[in-house]
Structure formats: structure tokens, C-alpha cells
């Protein structure tokens, strides 16, 4: 059981009009792994994420998860159901709830974990009050872990770009996922901030016991963090392997990395 990959994608395709943005991609991730998905711009990475998380309904293929609660097929489910099943994501083009505070953004993430209905919140039962306070405290705790506690009551839109990216991660973490999908988490960060982010992701994996699939163009981050890498180009999987293997793969160098890659 523990050997079965937590996420299993088989022959996934996504077609827009005549464009095969994702073309027969298969991929699997084991529990606790950090896996990177890289590839040139427009290769179909984000589309791949969208298919897994239910934003798009894939044209073809299967997305499956295996957890302690058994396995489940995700295709065709709504994004919120998929999130309930334990997949959380961040967005490449930041999509925070911009006119809500940082804390509230994270509290939204906790939505699923709340049990009380409208009636008990209107009557403000004791159970409800305790639950509400717990959401607040939990959310604050998450912000603290991610290092955003100084912004709690700021509006999300007033945060600097890098902080917004981290808030995306915090919000995703709040949904208690077992698998976290990060779309270019380091975009817009300077090298120093990227280093901090590497540390943060490492820590999240260790402390929160989650599996991570990330898309990133910053090779220093990809190479240090990930255990395995998948490379796509024009929607097709062109290579897979450890960072070392990928770094030396001719095809990948030609399509994506370029000759002189430092790191």
C-alpha cells in the first residue's frame, strides 16, 4: 500500500481547439516526495495542473489518488471536491482574495474543516464559538510558520509580490492537503528570497508530512529541492529522472535549459 503512488496520472491529454496543450502525459508521485515539473514556456505545465485540480476537464486520461482512505479517480470532479480529497494548489498568476485580509485568506482555506452550519452560527452556540476561535488560531499559526505573521490584518492586495506568493502557499496549506501543487512559487523573488523559500518548502514537507509537485523555472530551486523531475515540451513528456540525469539530458538542454547552466 505504502508503495502505491499517492498521485497517478495516466495518459492525460488536454486539447484546446486544435492545440494539444497536454499530450498523453503520465506521471506518478510517491508519498513524501518533492517532484518538479519543468519545461519551456507554453509547454502545458499549468494546463496539466488545471486538469488535475478540476479547473479544466481533461479531454482524455485518468487522474487517480491513493491514500489511506483508498484510491479515487479525480477526473470530472469539481475543483472543490478535489480539494476536499486532499489536493491543494497555488496559482501562477496570483489569485488571492485581494480585498480580504491575509488572515481571512487563510481562514477561507480552513472552510472544509468547519462543521457547524448556518443555524448554529446564527445562534452562536458554544461549539460554534470554540470552532471559530480555533480557525482563527490555526490560521494564525499557519501564517507564523510561513513567516507572514506581520501582515495578518493587511489586505492581501497591499502585500508585496513575494509575500503574496507565500500567502498563496499558506492558503493552500490551510486546506490540510496531502499533496501540494505549486505553480512557480519562486517567480518574482530574488535569489535570497528563493533560498528562504527552499527552506520553507523543505520544512513544510518535513513538519506537515506532505507531498509536493511543483512547477518552476528557477533551476537552482528545482535542482536543490526536487528528488525527481519530469520535463514536458509541446505537451509531451520528453524526459524524467533525478536532477543529475536531467541536467545532463541532451534533449532537455536543447529544449529548455540552454548550454551554460550554473547551479
Amino acid at each position: 500500500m505504502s508503495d502505491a503512488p499517492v498521485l497517478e496520472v495516466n495518459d492525460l491529454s488536454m486539447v484546446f481547439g486544435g492545440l494539444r496543450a497536454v499530450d498523453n502525459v503520465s506521471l506518478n508521485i510517491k508519498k513524501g516526495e518533492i517532484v518538479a515539473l519543468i519545461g519551456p514556456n507554453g509547454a502545458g505545465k499549468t494546463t496539466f495542473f488545471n486538469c488535475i485540480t478540476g479547473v479544466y476537464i481533461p479531454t482524455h486520461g485518468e487522474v487517480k489518488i491513493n491514500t489511506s482512505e483508498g484510491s479515487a479517480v479525480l477526473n470530472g470532479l469539481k475543483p472543490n471536491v478535489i480539494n476536499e480529497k486532499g489536493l491543494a494548489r497555488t496559482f501562477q498568476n496570483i489569485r488571492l482574495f485581494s480585498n480580504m485580509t491575509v488572515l481571512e485568506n487563510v481562514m477561507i482555506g480552513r472552510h472544509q474543516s468547519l462543521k457547524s452550519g448556518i443555524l448554529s452560527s446564527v445562534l452562536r452556540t458554544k461549539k460554534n464559538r470554540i470552532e471559530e476561535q480555533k480557525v482563527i488560531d490555526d490560521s494564525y499559526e499557519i501564517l507564523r510558520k510561513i513567516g507572514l505573521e506581520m501582515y495578518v490584518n493587511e489586505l492581501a492586495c497591499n502585500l508585496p509580490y513575494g509575500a503574496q506568493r507565500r500567502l498563496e502557499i499558506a492558503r493552500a496549506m490551510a486546506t490540510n492537503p496531502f499533496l501540494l501543487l505549486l505553480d512557480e512559487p519562486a517567480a518574482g523573488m530574488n535569489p535570497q528570497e528563493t533560498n528562504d523559500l527552499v527552506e520553507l518548502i523543505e520544512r513544510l514537507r518535513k513538519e506537515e508530512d506532505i507531498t509536493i509537485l511543483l512547477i518552476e523555472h528557477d533551476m537552482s530551486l528545482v535542482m536543490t529541492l526536487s528528488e525527481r523531475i519530469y520535463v514536458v515540451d509541446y505537451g509531451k513528456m520528453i524526459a524524467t529522472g533525478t536532477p543529475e540525469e536531467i541536467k545532463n539530458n541532451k534533449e532537455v538542454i536543447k529544449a529548455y535549459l540552454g548550454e551554460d547552466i550554473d547551479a
Partner: protein
Amino acid sequence: MLKIKNISTYYGNIQALKDITIDVSEGEIITLIGANGAGKSTTLMSLCGIVPVKSGSIEFEGQEISKMNPDRIVSLGISQVPEGRRIFPQLSVRENLDMGAFLRNDKDEIKKDIEYVYDLFPRLAERRHQQGGTLSGGEQQMLAISRALMARPRLLLLDEPSLGLAPLIVQQIFDIIKKVNQENNTTVFLVEQNANMALKIAHRGYVLETGKISMTDDADKLLANEDVKKAYLGI
């Protein structure tokens, strides 16, 4: 060519820029680096008149522009690749490029320039009829840069042009910046998180810290500076 003198900019009650002074001379590449939220993008937006400056002056080729409307400023030969790309989402790639050349009337030259940017980014040529909004992040970035080039600016403002681009393309973008600077003598004002690369191609650099200029020097000297290394280069 560009003289920014003691400008301060506010968002409501929050002061984003405090007494910024920057000089750029013709033909230079200068870069502005700084942490998230330091005010780099705000500097560019103030320059173009999108965010009004409260005090101070901005002179472009001897002309005071700090109170001008953005479209006037742009017509003086300044164009910008804004943060977040800001592609016109419902225009096709081709139409987005045409918008870049909005103030120009030389049809034939425009055609040539379009071919030129298609050459620079073959990916765009492939996607020329696609709606801007559905391009991938990186494709949008290429389009944003191309659109700015279509104006044939004399001063090109770039806000994090390498954001979200594949390593191969990043390299290419910096080459293009250099090329544009050398071949067309376009002055470049570059805002970058990728300080390493930026400082490598720039002549001079400024460091911005929470709305204030904290350091300015030749690019290679900044690259060697210990503080800069620690804070921005991640070494």
C-alpha cells in the same frame, strides 16, 4: 536623459517612495534592484504618470513630465513592460503588437518590426492569432516585451522581464536587452529580481530599500559588494 529628483509617491496614506533621486544618461542600461515591496514597480509607474507623484520632479530630455498625462509621456518615447505583463486579454497576439505601435504611423516600418519580434520570439509567430489572455505565462511575457519594442522607444522600462521565463529564454531576453541597447541605442531602465543577471548586463545599478535609495554604483562594483551579495544575490 532622465532626471528623477526627490520624488515621493503615496498610495492613500502609505508612502511608497521617499525622496528618490535617479539619473539615467542616454544609451545606458541601469538597473534597480530591491526586495519585494521596496517600491521598484512604483518607481516605474510614477515615471509613466500612472501613479501620481506627490512631490519632486521628473525631467525627460529637459522636459518636466511629472504632471503630464501618461499618454503624453509615452509619446515622448518612453515605453514600459509592466509587472504582471498586462496583455490585452481579448486581443490577438498580432493586435497586441499593433497596440504597441499605437502612436506610430509608418506602416511599412511597423510591418518590419513585427517580423523582427517574430524573429526574436518564434513562439509568438506560431501563436499570432491566439487571444492574448490564453497564452501561457512565459508567452505573455514575450509578448509584453515585444509590444514595448514595437513602440521603438528611446527609453525602455522593464519591470521584471525574466519573471516566469524558462532559463533558455531568460538568457535570450537579457541578450535581447543588450542588443536593443547597443543596436538602437535604446536607453534601458531595468527592474529585476534576478539581480545577478541584471547587474551583469547593466552599466550602473541602484538599490532600493523600503522606498529609499540605499546604494548606487557601477554594476560590477555592486556585484562585488558584500552587502548586496548577501541581501540580493543569495550567496
